[in-house]
């Protein structure tokens, strides 16, 4: 086996995006945003997502094990970008308002989170290189030669069959039931739309009482629904049918219906809301 026949690293390839205002690797897009050289609000995340799903399907078709890894990673980064974008889209400028200051801080925190995630991702790459380099060395680990083995003190065995069975039971039962596998449920979510979720929210908020955001998403079946409901609230805020109050960064977000009884309808979101998220990835992503 030639060294060059060993699996090579995935190389520069990876996921690239083509947007109106940017074309190139996703990594580069991220670093442009990180360096403030590109405004997050100018990035059409729905388009990025579409392209990513196409890319992931293509990977899958060629049976690349990278598909699942890249999909998981993309979801993390996309969720952070979405948070970031949502924070940026909120009205700014009137900084005398305490609420705005809090939102700005929240935005910075989200931004820091993205950077932190990127840092750990980079370090993980370094660890990978180290671990791979080290795995080329095999430690000497051989059975003792009989002469030396004879020096072992004679085994002092005091365990009865009953005690032994108890140990076995404890060890074999202690295992948590859930098998250790990569969760792929998040790749199978049903299509979730801002419009539908806004409809749901409007229904709940119709009672005119303040609702905590946590309560509003308590029945959400997935993180995707939570994110989309959050986006829906932003849209509704822009349409001035809800009021949002948050006491401090990461504090509970309180939502109050201010749209009166007038006929606000989620259909108004049709124009520029993101399209329904594309169909879920087919099952059986190679792990």
């Amino acid at each position, binding site marked *: 086996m030639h060294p060059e026949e060993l699996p090579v690293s995935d190389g520069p390839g990876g996921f690239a995006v083509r947007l109106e205002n940017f074309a190139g690797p996703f990594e580069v897009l991220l670093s442009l945003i990180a360096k403030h050289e590109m405004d997050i609000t100018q990035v059409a995340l729905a388009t990025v997502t579409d392209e990513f799903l196409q890319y992931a399907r293509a990977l899958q078709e060629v049976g690349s094990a990278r598909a699942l890894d890249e999909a998981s990673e993309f979801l993390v980064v996309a969720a952070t970008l979405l948070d970031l974008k949502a924070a940026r889209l909120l009205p700014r400028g009137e900084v005398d308002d305490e609420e705005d200051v809090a939102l700005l801080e929240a935005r910075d925190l989200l931004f820091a989170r993205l950077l932190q995630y990127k840092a750990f991702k980079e370090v993980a790459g370094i660890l990978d290189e180290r671990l791979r380099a080290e795995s080329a060395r095999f430690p000497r*680990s051989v059975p003792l030669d009989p002469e030396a083995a004879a*020096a072992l003190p*004679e085994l002092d065995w005091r365990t009865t069959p009953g005690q032994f069975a108890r140990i076995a039971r404890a060890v074999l039962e202690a295992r948590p039931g859930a098998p250790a596998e990569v969760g792929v449920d998040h790749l199978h979510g049903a299509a979730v739309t801002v419009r539908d979720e806004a409809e749901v929210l409007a229904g709940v908020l119709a009672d005119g009482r303040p609702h905590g955001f946590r309560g509003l998403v308590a029945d959400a079946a997935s993180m995707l629904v939570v994110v989309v409901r959050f986006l829906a609230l932003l849209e509704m805020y822009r349409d001035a049918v809800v009021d949002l109050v948050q006491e401090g960064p990461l504090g509970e977000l309180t939502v109050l219906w201010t749209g009166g009884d007038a006929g606000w309808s989620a259909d108004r979101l049709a124009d520029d809301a993101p399209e329904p998220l594309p169909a879920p990835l087919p099952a059986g992503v190679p792990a």
Partner: protein
Amino acid sequence: MSAPDREDPVGPDVEALPGGLKAAVEAILMAADEPVGEHALAAALVVPVASVQRVLDRLRAEYDGRPADPGYDGTLEPRGFELRSTGAGWRIYSRSEFAPVVSAFVAEGQTARLSQAALETLAVVAYRQPVSRGRISAIRGVNVDGVVRTLVQRGLVRELERDGESGAVLYGTTAFFLEKMGIGSLDELPEIAPHLPGIDQLDDYED
């Protein structure tokens, strides 16, 4: 030059590596966990068996402190290890003169009783045999390589066979284990709950 009994010689160019063929043979002998024959070495290194034989002789002389190179007039000290040939092949061992030292070291680190980790691992082997180290690790949630080796050394556990699919070594308990437990056969082990949760799924995610 006799061609090695493989298809095309596409193997690694060991001569180009630091230390050459001699170091390559050493590397294999140091890490191999069982004796290695000349033919296996020649096949892996894609060199004639005669070359391997020559290198082995030279290594043995070096380790023993006998200069292999007749032109060498310096002194060579024997190393603390030696190359021995057994029926099964070649293997590096501690030099026999140092057996008392090695024994002192081995005795120092070992206790007469099994550690809790060893007992738990033994319990998994006893109730789930034949079982691979990977699966024991999965059940116990820790790397068990060292503990399994201790149990083998203690004569309580042995290699039974290789798994047909994965090629992993499967372990089981020994007659010595039955003797220590005071039972005549594995059937006499006390029953534990017949259907433990989660056991069936274990096979699915071994890596």
